[in-house]
């Protein structure tokens, strides 16, 4: 079942890419929509068949591959990856729906998108470190091509920067994985075997630091973030949605699964510093966003701040904060996707993203009232207004981490305040104000263009009002992860104290 999530889109990508030349772009788009619809169905099926009481890996698959390397085809899904997997399926559809009908080189475009779908799904379900790494690196190629072919005017600069950064990220992660396996003298890269490793703490710190840099680039955390604004801004709307909604989550997923999961002791030792790092990231992202003059860039910087909350929740290591962090991954994916989609619509219709030029789009007759209303909703969800999904995720993180890191948590709360500042700037300049009647001959936003934002808005509001539907899948795994950290630390302490007792 998990294999289907990986291979159906990849096969679909192949079919679309090598379809005969007379197949029109609309056909290719339809095919891609079909495939992603199938993925969503499959994800829904997974969600409902998932055993809520079981924090372990489910739907496991195992096929021996290159045993001598310790590389096996080993898949599984738990509360951490399940929702991200579904988010991936959803955002792939959203991304395809957000693409222009008459996009250039449609077959290549859609096959690359589907390739991403398969690769990301693979990374989320891989239970073998090397297999994860393969899928993780596989992402780079389609993303690089998508940015450099369909991007904005500075696309080649952005794409190259992205490629170099993520290559460094990959190298760090590979180094950490290899180091882990060599030093623990394991014969396999299997996740469950490596989970019980008992490396000396100093070595754990080094490996964890490598991993934090590696995934920190992907997330991104300050100061590894400078690829993000360029890449997000230069990427076309569908690609930006995938970059912000999914690719960044690969980083946070990696940090939780491999950083927290494999080095619990080092993690809990480092956690005060991680919390400080998170707080800096939050404030930095928000402050930088306030100064931006380009709405897409502003949204891009907002992403840096929001990723900080996830790290904060992970650092705090209470079951509430970890559940909050995982919820925040999903919430942020939905919110960022809707923001990028709407910014894309505004750019396509009005022809600019400049804050100083945009004005009065809420105007019911000449403006883009529906898009503006959705933009208000998205911005407010991002700013953490209750009743929308961003709030409850952030609140769980705050409440969970307050007891451990009060100062950092309060700084993060200030960060949400600053989020409100820049989103109000954004809304005031774009949606409010007087529309210039002489220039406002905007093409109408068709229903098809609104569908992605409507789907996301429905989810954001529904999950905001009924967060149980978000949390129920996460809770067992989140609690188990935290419990594992505390027992593991206890076990280490026990082994250390044994000689003393004797």
């Amino acid at each position, binding site marked *: 079942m998990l294999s289907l999530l990986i291979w159906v889109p990849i096969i679909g990508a192949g079919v679309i890419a090598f379809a005969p030349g007379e197949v029109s772009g609309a056909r290719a788009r339809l095919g891609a929509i079909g495939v992603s619809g199938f993925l969503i169905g499959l994800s829904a099926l997974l969600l409902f068949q998932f055993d809520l009481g079981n924090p372990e890996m489910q739907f496991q698959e195992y096929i021996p591959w290159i045993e001598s390397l310790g590389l096996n085809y080993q898949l599984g899904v738990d509360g951490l990856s399940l929702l991200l997997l579904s988010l991936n399926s959803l955002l792939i559809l959203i991304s395809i729906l957000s693409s222009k009908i008459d996009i250039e080189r449609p077959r290549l475009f859609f096959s690359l998108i589907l390739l991403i779908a398969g690769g990301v799904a693979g990374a989320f379900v891989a239970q073998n470190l090397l297999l994860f790494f393969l899928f993780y690196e596989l992402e780079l190629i389609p993303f690089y091509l998508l940015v450099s072919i369909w991007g904005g005017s500075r696309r080649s600069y952005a794409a190259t920067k992205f490629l170099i950064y993520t290559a460094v990220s990959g190298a760090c992660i590979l180094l950490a994985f290899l180091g882990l396996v060599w030093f623990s003298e394991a014969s396999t890269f299997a996740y469950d075997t490596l989970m019980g490793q008992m490396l000396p703490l100093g070595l754990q710190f080094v490996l964890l630091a490598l991993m934090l840099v590696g995934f920190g680039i992907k997330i991104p955390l300050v100061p590894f973030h*400078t690829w993000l604004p360029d890449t997000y801004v230069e990427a076309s709307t569908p690609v930006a949605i995938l970059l912000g909604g999914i690719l960044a989550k690969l980083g946070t997923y990696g940090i939780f699964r491999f950083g927290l999961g494999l080095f619990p002791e080092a993690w809990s030792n480092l956690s005060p510093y991680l919390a400080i790092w998170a707080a800096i990231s939050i404030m930095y992202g928000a402050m930088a966003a306030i100064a931006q003059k380009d709405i897409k860039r502003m949204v891009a910087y907002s992403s840096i701040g929001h990723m900080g909350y996830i790290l904060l929740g992970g650092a705090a290591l*209470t079951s509430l904060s970890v559940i909050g962090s995982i919820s925040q991954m999903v919430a942020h994916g939905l919110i960022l996707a809707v923001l990028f989609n709407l910014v894309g619509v505004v750019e396509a219709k009005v022809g600019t993203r400049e804050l100083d030029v945009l004005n009065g789009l809420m105007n019911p007759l000449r403006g883009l009232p529906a898009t503006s209303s959705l933009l208000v909703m998205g911005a407010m969800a991002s700013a953490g207004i209750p009743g929308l999904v961003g709030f409850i995720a952030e609140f769980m993180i705050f409440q969970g981490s*307050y007891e451990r890191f009060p100062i950092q948590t309060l700084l993060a709360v200030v960060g949400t305040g600053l989020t*409100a500042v820049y989103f109000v700037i954004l809304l*005031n300049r774009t949606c*409010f*104000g007087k529309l210039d009647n002489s220039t406002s001959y905007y093409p109408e936003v068709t229903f098809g263009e609104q569908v992605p934002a409507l789907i996301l808005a429905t989810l954001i509001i529904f999950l905001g009002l009924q967060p149980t539907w978000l949390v129920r899948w996460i809770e067992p795994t989140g609690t188990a992860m935290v419990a594992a950290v505390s027992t593991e630390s206890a076990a280490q302490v026990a082994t250390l104290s044994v000689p003393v007792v004797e």
Partner: protein
Amino acid sequence: MNSFLAETIWFVPIYPLVGMLLSTLWFPSITRRTGPRPAGYVNAITTFLALVHSLLAFPAVAGQAATFKFIPWLQVADLDLTFPVMISSLTVGALILITGMNLAAQIYAVGYMEMDWGWARFYALLAMFEAGMCALVLCDSLFFSYMILEVLTLGTYLLVGLWLNQPLVVTGARDAFLTKRVGDLFLLMGVLAIYPLAHTWNFTELATWAQTAQVDPNVMALVGLALLAGPMGKCAQFPLHLWLDEAMEGPFPSTILRNSVVVATGAWVLVKMEPVFALSSTVMATAIAIGAITALGGTLISMGQIDVKRAISYLVSAYMGLTFIAVGTGNNDAALLIVLTHALAMGALVMSSGSIVLNNITQDLTQLGGLWNKRPVTGLSFVAGALGLIALPPLGGFWSMLALADGVWQSRPVVLGLLLVINAFAAFAITRVFGLIFAGETNPMTLRSPENLWPVTVPMVFGGAFVLHLPLVMQSLSLLPDWATLNKDVALLLIWSSIFGLSLGAVVYIGTFITKPVTLPSKALQDLFAYDFYTPRLYRSSVVGSVDIVSRVTDWFDRYLVDGFVNLVGLASIFGGETLKYSTTGKTQFYVLTIAVGLVLIVLLMSWSFLADLSLVSGN
């Protein structure tokens, strides 16, 4: 029947919510077909249903002990978020007040917004406020109160920004949102901080906890101050009072709600949290200080305003300041009474001044005047509101003020003195507004001024009439003190202070002895009041300015240092590559040389361990 309605009282917030959803169906395309009005009618009907429901439920709960209903919302890890619904005579009474004021405002809006196209948006937002406030009074939990207050902050932003193509409206909406959000975020910090101490957010349980709590006084002071900041934002207290002034850019009908009941949401939470505040004397003292500063400052600033909406809205801040004083001195009942009498009186005041503004097309007090003969109905409503606001028997304001004054009379005589001054100032300020609108010469703007359409006039008259009947209602609910226990000295003092303020105001602004416009001897002092103690400028140079500077610095740092470093590395590698490519000369000798040098280096490296053992190198 009544008890069934009382049990299902949690349904009251649902009516306006349904109305809100129905209103949002009026997209521009549908509005083009039906006109904007049905969106409003739908809402007025749902509000009416909510009002009827609350009214019918009231007899079943009057005099009964509070009952609770629990609606589970989210249970995660060790956190249990259940919505506790508190059904008591107080909460149902508050529901009646809220839905009643809403119905009045919505009918009023039918007339006032006659020519407007934004009905769907406007009514949806009014309904959102109504639903939020109803849910707030029903909920017995700090956490859910915070959630609702935060949603209402968003509502304020959108409602103030209704006429979004005017630049002043846009900045007003922005400032209102951000100022309220500051208060909300402090409240959030308080919400986060109090849970580890009390392990509950339920007001009732918090009160029980507070009776026996042993908390570090410093921690409690900080937590209490954070919790106090939320109501401060909502009640437009100094230094977060600016938003109410800016919010006056919004349409008049929403001002009816805002000035009467929306600001009172803060006072409501304040009263509910009083047991927790009482744990720290610092917090209580701060509440009194803030309330006193705002009340005194608000009345003074109100006297300096030439905009009728602003002149009235600063009085709102002042009266909410009185609730802070009441809670700070532990007089919760007095605080709630002030909320009730102030809400009704303010409703009448805003509706009647709106009725003037609507067809004189100006809200500038200096342009108005001489309207008493032309607008007797509006004038009477205004007078009813004004007299009901200040402490003048037998109207409501007197009894609420008396309750507060009576509570502080023994323990804090200074506060009593302050109350007398504030009351006199308020009486003066409201007389001034009355004088400038209704007395004096007719101005060009007031030459033709008939009474308005019935949707405007009827709610206004009802508002005024209800203020006049409020003492009877209070009597029937036994909210009035007995003649025997009445503190006659305090009552007399209050009456004298009101009469003093009224007569002084009348002499200056209704009489003809003093030339208008009235100026203070000191221009600087007058400007200080007129420009709201220069608070906007203060904000701009402090909070706003520093955020602006820090964000620019961060952006510069990001652009030139962090990104600059990355680009430098990139440039360096390109430069290195470009330089090295000239090493590809094609000459065999050169290649042989490089190979030789490389070999020597490798050999040296490989044999380093061997060489290091030599005594020559290691020095042994």
